[in-house]
Every structure is written in C-alpha cells, then in structure tokens.
C-alpha cells in the first residue's frame, strides 16, 4: 500500500533547499542592517580617534589659528538640552500613549491625537526649529537652551506616544481583568499593572526617541544657537555637539575638521553609552522567569 502523504525525493530536496535559502536571506538582511553602523563607526574611529585627548573633554573651543581646545561645553550643552527635552517629551509622550491605548480607544479625540502624532513624526526637524523659534525665541528676543530643549522634547513626543500605545495594547486583557477583579481602581491598574507590564517596550520607545534627537542639528540652529563659551544657564544660548560638529565641519580649517570628526565619534559613543546604561538599570530588577 502506498502512502498518499509520502512525498517524492525531489520535493523533499526542494523543501530543504528553500529552508536554507530563507535562512540565508534572513542572515544576509541582518548583515545589511548592521553593516552601515559598523562602517560608520570604524570610519569615525579612523578619522576622529587621533584628535581625542583629555583636552577635548575638559576645554572649550579655541579661537581660529590656535591649536588644541575641546568641546567640553558642547558635551555639557548636549546633555542639558537632552535632559530638558526628555523631561518634557517623556512624560507627555507616555501620558498621550496611555490615553490612546486605555481611555480614548476608538474615540474621535484619540483618532485625532493619533493622526497628529503621525504627522508630527513626519515634520522635518528644521520646521520644528523654526516653529519653536517663533514660539519661544521671538517673544523672548534671545536664543536659549530652554528653546532648544523644547524643540527636542516636541520631536520626542510622537515616537514615544506611538510606541507606548502599541506596547500597552500588547498587554493581555487577562492581566487588566486580574487587576480590576482585585478591586483596584482603573487608573491605578493602568499605571501599576498595564504600564509596568509594558515598561520594557515603553523604555525602548523612549530610548529610540532620545537617540534620534540626540543627533539633531536643525532644530537647534534657531533655538539653542550654539555658544563658544561655558554656559549652564537655560536662559542663554548653549553649545551642543551636533551644532559644534556642523559649524566645524563647514569651516575651512583642517584643525576644526579633525575636531568635528572627534565630536561625531564622541556623540555616537555617548548615545550608545546612555542607551546601554538605561537598559542595564531598567532590566536589573527583572525576576527569574518574568516574561
């Protein structure tokens, strides 16, 4: 008796081959995704590492013609701008995401918010800079770190909102019911159970937004403006790494070009370090077997 489901040798060989082809394609795509990052990083190391020294991290820029000097003020400025941006963007972004996923589901307002967030995500960053320029810089009549931070913060909101929404919607309904069934008020259940269960994904969203705006130059051109000197005053123009790189890279001086490369290298390293640090801190408390 022949078995109907037994396949021919040719078919089986094709099945094995197609399996290998699919696996090969997946590996190839992975390599294609990682390659640019590695190439950029190696190129930055090659161009910038030689200009890195202690002075780069401790000194402010020297005037044209003098050698040496560093970007200490720009590193600090970027940190301050990102702190202001995150302080604004993370809470608003997460709160809007919670609204979309938990309270406004399917409502008109939620659809409007979702649509606005998607459009905001597509607004060119230079437009964001101009908008904040007319909203904050013009009325104040001077550039400021605060305006730069606000521009970065607004740019963070849509990414954080949409990832928060997606991550909250992935939390199983059974988990929400478990909390409500214990007599926990809805708001408490949303904050302490749903958001907490979704927190790894929400944090990833925040980090994505953070890493994206950390390298932005355009929104800072008309807001933070840049500064050759030390400043920690939020009400004054402030230096930022991307701005400094932009100015130095466009200059006609070789010394400044080298510093621009070093600045780019430092910017990337700082982003990688801060993202890894947040990941490490937030996953440290995860329990054995937690999903």
């Amino acid at each position, binding site marked *: 008796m022949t078995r109907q489901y037994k396949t021919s040798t040719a078919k089986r060989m094709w099945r094995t081959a197609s399996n290998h082809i699919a696996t090969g394609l997946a590996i190839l795509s992975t390599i294609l995704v990682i390659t640019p990052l590695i190439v950029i990083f190696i190129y930055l190391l090659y161009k910038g590492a030689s200009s890195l020294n202690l002075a780069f991290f401790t000194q402010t820029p020297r005037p044209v013609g003098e050698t040496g000097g560093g970007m200490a003020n720009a590193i600090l400025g970027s940190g301050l701008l990102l702190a202001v941006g995150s302080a604004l963007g993370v809470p608003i972004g997460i709160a809007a995401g919670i609204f979309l996923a938990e309270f406004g589901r399917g409502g008109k307002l939620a659809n409007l918010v979702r649509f606005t967030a998607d459009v905001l995500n597509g607004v060119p960053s230079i437009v964001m800079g101009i908008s904040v320029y007319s909203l904050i810089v013009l009325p104040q009549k001077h550039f400021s770190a605060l305006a730069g931070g606000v521009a970065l913060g607004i740019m963070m909101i849509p990414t954080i909102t949409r990832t928060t929404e997606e991550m909250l919607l992935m939390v*199983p309904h059974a988990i929400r019911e*478990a909390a409500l069934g214990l*007599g926990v008020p809805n708001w408490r259940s949303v904050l*302490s159970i749903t958001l907490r269960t979704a927190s790894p994904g929400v944090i990833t969203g925040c980090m994505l937004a953070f890493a994206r705006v950390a390298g932005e130059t355009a929104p800072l051109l008309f807001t933070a403006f840049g500064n050759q000197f030390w400043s920690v005053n939020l009400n004054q123009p402030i230096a930022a790494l991307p701005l400094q790189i932009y100015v130095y890279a466009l200059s006609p001086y070789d010394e400044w070009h080298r510093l621009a490369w070093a600045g780019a290298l430092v910017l990337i390293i700082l982003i990688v370090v801060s993202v890894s640090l947040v990941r490490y801190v937030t996953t440290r408390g995860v*329990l054995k077997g937690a999903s």
Partner: protein
Amino acid sequence: MGVGLQVTNLNAWYGTNHALLDINLPIPANGATALIGPSGCGKSTFVRCLNRMHETNPIARVTGSVRMGDIDIYADVSPVEVRRRVGMVFQRANPFPTMSIYDNVASGLRLNGFSNRRILDEIVERSLKNAALWEEVKGDLKKKSGASLSGGQQQRLCIARALAVDPEVLLMDEPASALDPVSTAKIEDLIFELKSQYTIVIVTHNMQQAARVAERTGFFLNGKLVEFDATHKIFTNPGDKRTEDYITGRFG
C-alpha cells in the same frame, strides 16, 4: 466569613445579544455553588455580573439586582468596592508577569494603598497556605516571577492573590479547565477547604467536579437558568428534562 447573594431578575446584554434572561437565584453563604451548562449558555456572563466585571466591556449592559447581605451591588456601592468584596479567579491563570510571587499575592492590598510590611508578610504567608502553595514556593517568594510557576501553581497563586484581599465571596470561572488531573484535584481540595469560610461560586464544564465540590448546582441553557437545586438532586433526579439530557450526555 462569607455572605450570601440574592440575584433577582438579572438580565445582561452584549450589544444586542441578550446573554442572560431573568435569572433568579439565591446563593447561600459559606458553601459552594456550581454552575453547569454547555458553552455559550451564559454561565461566565452570570458570574461576571456578580462582581460587576461584566460592565468593563464597553458594549455590555445589565438590569436587575444582586443583593449581597443588605446591599445592592448595582445601586449602593461602586464597582471597585464590589470587587474588593467579591473576588474572582479566572479560567486562565493570570499572574502579573512582572511581579514576584510575593508581590503577586500582596498586589491587591498594595495597589489599594496598604503598605505595612509585617502585616503584608503575614497575609501573604496565610494566603499562600490557604491556597496550598506555601510549601512549594516559600523558598523563592521574592526571587521568582509569578509567571515562572507551572500552570497549576499559577492558578493557585491567583487563588492566593484573590484570598489576600479577604473577600466574602469567591467567584471561580472554570478554574481548573486548563489544568492536568493532579492540579485539578488540588484545586478541588482547596475549594472544599475554603468553602467553610467563603461563599464560592464555581463555573465548570466538568460535571464530576460540580458533584464533588458543590452543595448546590444550577444548570444554564441559552441564557436561562433551567434548574437550581441541591447537587445530588440535579445529578440523580433532575426536575427538568433538559437538565437530564445534558447530564446524561444526550446533548451539549
């Protein structure tokens, strides 16, 4: 101590689907009441009406009254208050995955603002003992996630979590349907232990289970309560032809 429930003219809808029709049912205190019936007959909807979980579905609607002691849970108190007094165990074990075993059990109290460590420790231990889980988990209460336990242990963890807030009524919606026979037997033993202190309502597809744990049994069919009587009467001498057909396996 448990408290009895008196259900009067309860109707429930999902959108336009009339899921429960004029249910009248007394649920005695400190005992186990089983609800049986084919899938989709309204058993789960019915128990979800007893702690107002039904209304968490935006398209759901309820009329009628459920009295718990002297209060009408639909008129006199908020749903949050009702759910503190009427605990629930779901069909699929649903421990909070980010929380340790300890935190899972303490969650109901903590999320309502209770934070006295010493008393929490006591309540967690007592609840886990009552749920027959203490011996298995006492070594890694704070080390392991609730989600790392086996299916049967997770369900007992959920029972412990429900017991920790000290409810008067405990609703169990097919608590053993996803479990193996050994875990099922443990849950049944547990129900047997607990019913002296709590009023238990258990939905089950397993008629032997109903016969083993419950003093009274109700048979639901197409959103109606066909028959409600002492368990031995339902299973040996049912008053309604449809009940007899169902328990003898002629349909459903």
